[in-house]
């Protein structure tokens, strides 16, 4: 028999704390769709995705209804198109992006990821074509997401690719100037990209993955915040060790929900279950914010001194609780700090408490990196590349995933507001130090070697 407390606390999490499954992402392997001319590739890609994803949305909705837990987003991640379309020219890859967009629309998923390249050690022909195609591909489609891995702890940082990506980001923003550079919200540049991320914009299906796989991204910042608030109300003297324990337990609960639903979706679709990504993923809604957790922990806002330590505590506790809840953990797993997607973080950026440098510092202990950061439109491609390089260095040296999703908002300056709409939210544009200045370091190109793995200090 269930206890009243178990039932009522579940309903509380659902109704008032935004407990949900943030995304069920179907990975589709397209590697054997490569070869031949563009029409053939387009046809094979469309047939493969439609064949596997036709029931994804109805199955997720049915299972979400069965448990009373909404599956908020249903998404698709495909093999890196730089590999699948290695023989195609950039303009042909844009056409392939249109195919992905149309297929995503047909099966009612909001995003499809995998317009991706893995170039940490060098750029092949297909990679160059894809990177060239990214700005237009993202501006002529609504649902296609792109990611490029430019660095890894084993390979170092491919600075030629970093510079190209700086230019890609700038160009993508210019092509969508009337929408505040919204194309950039669908473009992530990574170090140490995992092969099984269910979250966008970084989701793609790794080369080492099977034909198809279901990965799940959980959520739960609201649940964690309310748990902290309740605990501190009943015991105002609770110390950080106690709070860490509490977050761990809460993360355990949230992860179990994701695993339960993910496994059932996978079984219903006859597809292998992959991983649960244990991330605390916010939305631009009050009460569904990672930023609010910092305030519950006792900080004035994210960005003030103490933020890095608080995020280290939060991220670690989330991972520990989640790892206990599921034996199939992967993806990014930790706390996201996407500025525009989190109402509270966006406010901290707006009132000057959170600056780019502090954001960069805290990415050394969070799960991703400089995420959804709106910067002035006159920031040069070189400076954007330099920001990316800094973020990559944090990931490479610390043997963790980091990413940059920067939006240089055309025609707008620091302090102005940028609006991306829907889940992407809105944000105050934050200033960039020496944003328009020259950067000869970045222009040198080449490879920053992989770091030494001993003498760790």
């Amino acid at each position, binding site marked *: 028999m269930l206890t009243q407390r*178990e039932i009522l606390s579940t309903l509380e999490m659902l109704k008032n704390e935004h407990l949900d499954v943030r995304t069920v992402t179907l990975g589709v392997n397209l590697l054997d769709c490569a070869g031949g001319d563009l029409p053939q590739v387009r046809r094979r890609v469309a047939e493969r995705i439609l064949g596997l994803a036709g029931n994804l949305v109805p199955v997720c909705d049915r299972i979400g*209804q069965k448990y009373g837990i909404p599956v908020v987003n249903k998404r698709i991640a495909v093999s890196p198109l730089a590999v699948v379309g290695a023989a195609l020219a950039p303009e042909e890859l844009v056409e392939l992006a249109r195919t992905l967009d149309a297929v995503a629309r047909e099966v009612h998923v909001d995003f499809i990821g995998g317009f991706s390249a893995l170039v940490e050690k060098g750029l092949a022909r297909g990679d160059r074509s894809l990177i060239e195609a990214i700005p237009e591909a993202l501006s002529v489609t609504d649902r296609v997401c792109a990611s490029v891995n430019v660095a890894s702890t084993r390979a170092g940082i491919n600075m030629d690719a970093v510079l190209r990506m700086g230019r890609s980001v700038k160009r993508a923003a210019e092509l969508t100037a009337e929408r505040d550079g919204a194309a950039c919200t669908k473009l992530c540049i990574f170090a140490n990209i995992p092969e099984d991320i269910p979250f966008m914009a970084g989701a793609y299906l790794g080369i080492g993955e099977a034909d198809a796989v279901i990965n799940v991204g959980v959520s739960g910042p609201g649940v964690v915040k309310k748990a902290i608030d309740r605990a501190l109300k009943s015991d105002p003297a609770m110390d950080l060790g106690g709070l860490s324990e509490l977050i761990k337990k809460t993360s355990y609960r949230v992860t*179990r929900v994701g695993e339960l639903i993910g496994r059932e979706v996978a079984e219903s679709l006859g597809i292998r279950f992959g991983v649960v990504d244990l991330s605390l993923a916010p939305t631009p809604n009050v009460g569904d914010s990672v930023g609010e957790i910092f305030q519950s922990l006792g900080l004035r806002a994210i960005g003030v001194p103490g933020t890095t330590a608080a995020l280290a505590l939060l991220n670690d506790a989330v991972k520990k609780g989640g790892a206990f809840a599921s034996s199939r953990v992967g993806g990014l797993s930790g706390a996201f700090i996407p500025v525009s997607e989190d109402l509270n973080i966006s406010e901290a950026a707006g009132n000057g408490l959170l600056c780019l440098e502090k954001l960069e510092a805290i990415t050394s202990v969070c799960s991703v990196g400089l995420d959804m950061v709106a910067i002035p439109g006159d920031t040069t491609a070189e400076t954007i590349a330099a920001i990316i390089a800094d973020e990559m260095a944090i990931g490479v040296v610390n043997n963790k995933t980091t990413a940059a999703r920067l939006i240089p908002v055309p025609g707008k300056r620091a302090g102005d507001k940028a609006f991306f709409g829907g889940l992407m939210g809105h944000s105050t544009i934050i200033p960039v130090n020496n944003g328009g200045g020259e950067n000869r370091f970045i222009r040198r190109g080449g490879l920053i070697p992989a770091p030494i793995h001993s003498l760790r200090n």
Partner: protein
Amino acid sequence: MSKAILSILGRDRPGIVAAVSRVLCEQSCNIENVSQTMLQTEFAGIFIVSMPAGMSAAELHRTLESRLSPLALTVHTKPCEHGEAPGTAASEPFVITTRGPDRKGLVADISEVIARHGVNITHLQAVFKGGEEPGDNIMIYEVDVPHAVDVQALAAELRTRARSLQLDLILQHRNIFEALHRI
């Protein structure tokens, strides 16, 4: 060996289970199942016991009554029938929870829909403190929904009925509670 089912009711206080089980032990009855609860100030216990050869439920009842009535406990005894319990057909466990203002007939109205779909209630907890505060008035039905029953249709009808009663109703598979709260 024959079995009997007993129900014991009375104002709650320490020693009721001890008194009942002492009598059963002296009568060489073996307790197979017990469920005991307390509603507000009242004790309610249900016992299924196996009786020694030759003992009838009526005989056991007389003994229990004579020993327990001085303690102001009411006893009801009847032979326990064998056979398959309802709800043992292939089914899935769900939980229906309602919250909303207190009205007469809430349990009757919701359980009528449940019954009409051939769904068996396995546990029911309801607290009505009265008034309009939704959190003060809660019904929790644990039910077994046979595979043949259309869960979506059941959910839709329950929600319609709940709306007419101004109740907030949710139907969820039991596993979600297990996943969230139990290791």
